[in-house]
């Protein structure tokens, strides 16, 4: 209940066009993904500073925000907050005109929800803002989306968020193999582009989707998409922050916030979508999307966010044939075969007879001879000795691979790991200098529990650092430990993969999906199709049951609504009487009635009816002996509270409703009013509460009703006649 009250004054201020124009465009960049998908690398460095094609991810996000016209960015850092802050302090973004980057540090936020609540407390966001996470990459222009968002806000202050989506090929296999994400289902109203349904973990539903039937009641048409990709770029109104504060259990942006808004129809907040066509936008969620997006960058889909254009830095990169980006000052052996789609950072040495294909190699690496690097990501200052083989692996800064060692597909080597000679690292293994935290639960359900341990950096660090908190003695100890694990002279721990997760490992790794898994997926899809066909063939089993339940629930609903409306009427009446007795201002009464309307899910028509009803009741309860005195009472009550009534009568339909309600009152509850019907009607017309058209429409509406219903029309015949004549005269 707090939300509307809090946001109400804000809405009014931000609706002011001048106010809107004055506020610079702001953005909130969450420099923490609040997940553990990039472990063990993220134990030592925050995800946003991980190099993507040799440039930290956050650079892409900031560069895009800057070019999209955002003037003020709040970088919310949580895990490794110090590293992020120092990076930003020393970056070029500090010296940019018309672009300020402010960091907000927090150590006890464990989710995006906490982050947004903290930002709300800081009170730094003053208008519409762009909400992205630091691992988002895009080159879209915000102008259209922002304009649409603002226009919609002017019309409907409940449209609090615009979500950017992008078309992508509708095949669940593609979803899996491109970004490593689950299939996403969305229901969108094709005319208003309103988001009505959002389900990202569709695989758990075993191929069935259940839509709330109310969606079909409220919307004339719905398009259901499984070919959309969520770009995780949102344009939000300030209310979003207050919503997070009011609903303290919102953690995840999509799972809780978006779904919460979609389910919650009391506030009536809406989420709209904006589809981008030619521009690029994607988010690095896991190792697979890291791989895919790196390759998209190399293939220049993200232009101008490509290595040779935007980030020359200290050493310009040149683009050669077949997507080969080479920084200057690299030493390539003549016999080295550097294949298509590669990036090589500055001062890197590549030895003879070495093959590099589809890979990214960072700065200052030394790569020996007869090395094979295929589809891998080698970061800065890595030493790879002769005869090593790397296939679809990620190798972090400072790793040393002794000669003849081999990385199988999907391996991740964290910072400064040393692999012994001729050692073969098994597929999908993750190697780190840090020991695996004892709490190992990367299951979806338990993700939050783990999030807390991940993002409360100190605690994880504590866990991890304690064993090797010392220096040399611990190191040597570790070396001794790891000799069997990583070969002679190897340093690091191979993280054990828990039993359950092993199956899932291939989904999110940099390595391509093994063919047998691929056939598994496609077979699963075919099975699903078969299942669906069977369902269609045999509707007897499930098909019959559903309508029944629907009918039942509908009946319930109707009863509910009837009950609701009487309760609502009573509540309104009580409120109104209190207002009369305590002399409460009309504005306040309106506010209270509004909140009642929201909580009972009523229309403003109902409010008008209820208020009119309570006014008539009040008038009849005041002391009177004759009909003329009663009429006087009615007159005084109506003229005193006409503003209240008028505020619920925006149009003709509501006015007709009031007349109908009046009839009902005269017939049922306050019968003594019935002889005064025409007089009061005339009075309401004089007070301009009821318009001429409304009265005439009411008459025509009644024209083909039963005789019994026409009592009042007949009574008002003279008045109606007079009205018609008056209008004719005017014409």
């Amino acid at each position, binding site marked *: 209940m707090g939300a509307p009250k809090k946001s109400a004054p804000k809405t009014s201020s931000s609706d002011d066009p001048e106010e809107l124009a004055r506020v610079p465009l702001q953005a909130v960049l969450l420099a923490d993904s609040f997940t553990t998908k990039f472990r063990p690398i993220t134990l030592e460095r925050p995800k946003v500073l991980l190099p993507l094609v040799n440039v930290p991810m956050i650079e892409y996000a900031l560069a895009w925000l800057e070019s999209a016209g955002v003037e003020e960015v709040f970088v919310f850092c949580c895990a490794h907050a110090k590293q992020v802050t120092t990076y930003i302090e020393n970056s070029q973004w500090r010296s940019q005109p018309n672009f300020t980057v402010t960091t907000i540090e927090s150590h006890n936020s464990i989710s995006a929800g906490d982050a947004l609540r903290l930002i709300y407390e800081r009170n730094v966001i003053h208008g519409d803002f762009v909400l992205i996470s630091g691992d988002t990459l895009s080159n879209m222009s915000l102008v259209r989306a922002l304009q649409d968002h603002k226009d919609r806000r002017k019309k409907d202050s409940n449209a609090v968020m615009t979500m950017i989506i992008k078309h992508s090929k509708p095949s669940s296999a593609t979803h899996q193999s491109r970004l490593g994400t689950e299939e996403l289902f969305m229901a969108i109203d094709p005319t208003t582009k309103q988001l009505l349904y959002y389900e990202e973990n569709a695989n758990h539903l075993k191929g069935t989707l259940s839509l709330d039937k109310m969606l079909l009641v409220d919307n004339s048409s719905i398009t259901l998409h499984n070919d959309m990709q969520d770009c995780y770029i949102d344009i939000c109104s300030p209310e979003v922050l207050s919503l997070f504060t009011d609903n303290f259990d919102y953690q995840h942006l999509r799972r809780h916030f978006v779904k919460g808004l979609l389910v919650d129809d009391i506030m009536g907040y809406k989420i709209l979508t904006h589809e981008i066509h030619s521009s690029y936008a994607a988010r690095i969620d896991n190792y697979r999307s890291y791989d*895919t997006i790196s390759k998209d960058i190399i293939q*220049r889909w993200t232009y101008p966010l490509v290595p040779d254009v935007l980030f*020359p830095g200290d050493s310009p990169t040149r683009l050669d044939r077949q997507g080969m980006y080479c920084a200057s000052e690299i030493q390539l052996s003549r016999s080295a075969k550097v294949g298509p789609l590669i990036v090589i950072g500055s001062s890197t040495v590549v030895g003879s007879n070495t093959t590099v294909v589809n890979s990214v190699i960072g700065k200052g690496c030394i790569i020996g001879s007869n090395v094979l690097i295929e589809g891998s990501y080698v970061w800065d200052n890595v030493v790879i000795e002769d005869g090593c083989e790397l296939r679809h692996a990620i190798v972090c800064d400072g790793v040393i691979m002794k000669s003849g060692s081999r990385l199988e597909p999907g391996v991740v080597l964290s910072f400064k790991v040393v692999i012994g000679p001729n050692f073969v690292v098994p597929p999908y293994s993750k190697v780190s200098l840090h020991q695996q935290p004892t709490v190992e639960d990367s299951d979806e359900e338990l993700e939050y529990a783990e999030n807390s341990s991940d993002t409360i950096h100190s605690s994880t660090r504590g866990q991890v650092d304690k064993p090797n908190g010392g220096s040399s003695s611990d190191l040597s100890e570790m070396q001794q430990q790891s000799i069997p694990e990583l070969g002679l002279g190897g340093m690091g721990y191979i993280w054990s993969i828990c039993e359950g997760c092993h199956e899932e490992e291939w989904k999110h790794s940099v390595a391509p999906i093994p063919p047998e898994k691929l056939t598994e997926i496609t077979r699963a899809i075919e099975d699903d199709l078969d299942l669906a066909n069977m369902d269609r063939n045999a509707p007897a089993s499930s098909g019959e049951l559903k309508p029944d339940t629907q009918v039942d629930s509908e009946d319930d609903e109707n009863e509910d609504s009837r009950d609701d409306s009487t309760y609502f009427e009573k509540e309104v009446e009580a409120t109104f009487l209190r207002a009369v007795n305590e002399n409460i201002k009309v504005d306040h009464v309106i506010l209270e009635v509004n909140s009642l309307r929201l909580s009972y899910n009523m229309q403003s028509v109902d409010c008008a009816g209820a208020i009119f009803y309570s006014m008539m009741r009040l008038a009849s309860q005041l002391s009177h002996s004759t009909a003329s005195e009663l009429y006087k009472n009615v007159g005084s009550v109506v003229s005193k509270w006409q503003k209240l009534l008028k505020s619920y009568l925006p149009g003709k339909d509501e006015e007709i409703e009031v007349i109908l309600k009046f009839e009902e009152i005269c017939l049922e509850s306050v019968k003594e009013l019935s002889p005064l019907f025409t007089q009061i009607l005339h009075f309401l017309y004089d007070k301009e509460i009821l318009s001429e058209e409304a009265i005439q429409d009411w008459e025509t509406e009644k024209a083909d009703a039963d005789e019994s219903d026409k009592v009042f029309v007949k009574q008002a015949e003279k008045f109606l006649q007079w009205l018609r004549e008056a209008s004719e005269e005017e014409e």
Partner: protein
Amino acid sequence: MPDVQSLVNEFILKLKKRKIEGSQATARQTAVLLRSVISQQRIPYTSQAAALIDAVRAVGEQLIAANPIELAVGNIVRRVLHIIREEDLSLTTAAIEGLNVSSVSDDDGDTDKDDTPGLSAAALAAAARSTLRPPSLQTLLEDLPDSSAIPHTSSSGGDSDGKSKSADKSTRSRKLKHDVIEAINELIQDIDTCHDQIAEQAVEHIHHNEVILTLGSSKTVLEFLCAAKEKKRSFRVFVAEGAPRYQGHLLAKELVARGLQTTLITDSAVFAMISRVNMVIVGAHVVMANGGVIAPVGLNMVALAAQRHAVPFVVLAGCHKLCPLYPHNPEVLLNELRSPSELLDFGEFSDCMDFGYGTGTPLLHVVNPTFDYVPPKLVSLFITETGGHDPSYMYRLIADYYSADDLVLQRKVASVK
């Protein structure tokens, strides 16, 4: 000069992000920026020209590094350097004439602090170079005594001069700056009016009932065609749409709005249509020193088609597009590859961009180059502000606009790389 530095940074950012479209806009903004750099530059009493040249060169290097593909930036930087040299030269000659011949001998015997043997050697080399350089057309026409200028090409001549006449010195330094800024203002004006000046010649080239073909969209071409139309020439225009950016569509719209009979064709229909065409008129991105043209993609094909049917291929280019470099210089990046999204819809083809299958290598590559190189032998005529020129004449035109010393600018950048 913190404000100049911030201006420079801002411009560099714009260049980096490819936010400035079109070489005319780039050229103009570069000139404006360099003007403010010069006006804010503090000038020492001695070697003013050298100080200015250093300042401009330092900024120029940054600008060129920011967007090496936009050669107009480098062209303007060189033009400004050339202007400084010219102004310095003309001032020195004026001063010497006033000072009598004795000052020339004074120059040799002087033990100026800046006049180290190394510098004088450089001066000698510069002098030698300018004697070796063929006299430019302008000097021939204006009949200037070229020999009198030779000993004073370098700034060292000015130094000794300033030392002997201290009263003259301050006025001279102010004068040099003033003159340079005046000249840059002229340059900016030239850039602004280049369309009009080129368009003025339209009637000489476009005749009644001719058919003109063009590709893509160029402001210069638009003005040129409209100028001919205004002079009551009636002719028809074929516009090739210029895939993948389809700027030809915009041009066609614009031409129709100005009342020209226009036909829009696809790029691939050019060869089929060329036999009906009397003349091909196109714009250029950059004209190289050998007369080759870097132009929107697709133009080489048009030029070949034109040659096959002996249709004149005319290139319109403002003087800021003349680049003193040869296309085989390693520093000259001929092309920029843009996003494949201009060709393909990412959503429709996202399954082809799939790295999760098989070996992790996508089978589909998309290449979207921005420019084509049209060799000089395919170009029939260049039309600049100064008139029509043969491709083989380009190097002479360039010698008029740039001084040979400023090619060093590019080499310096290369050595930094």
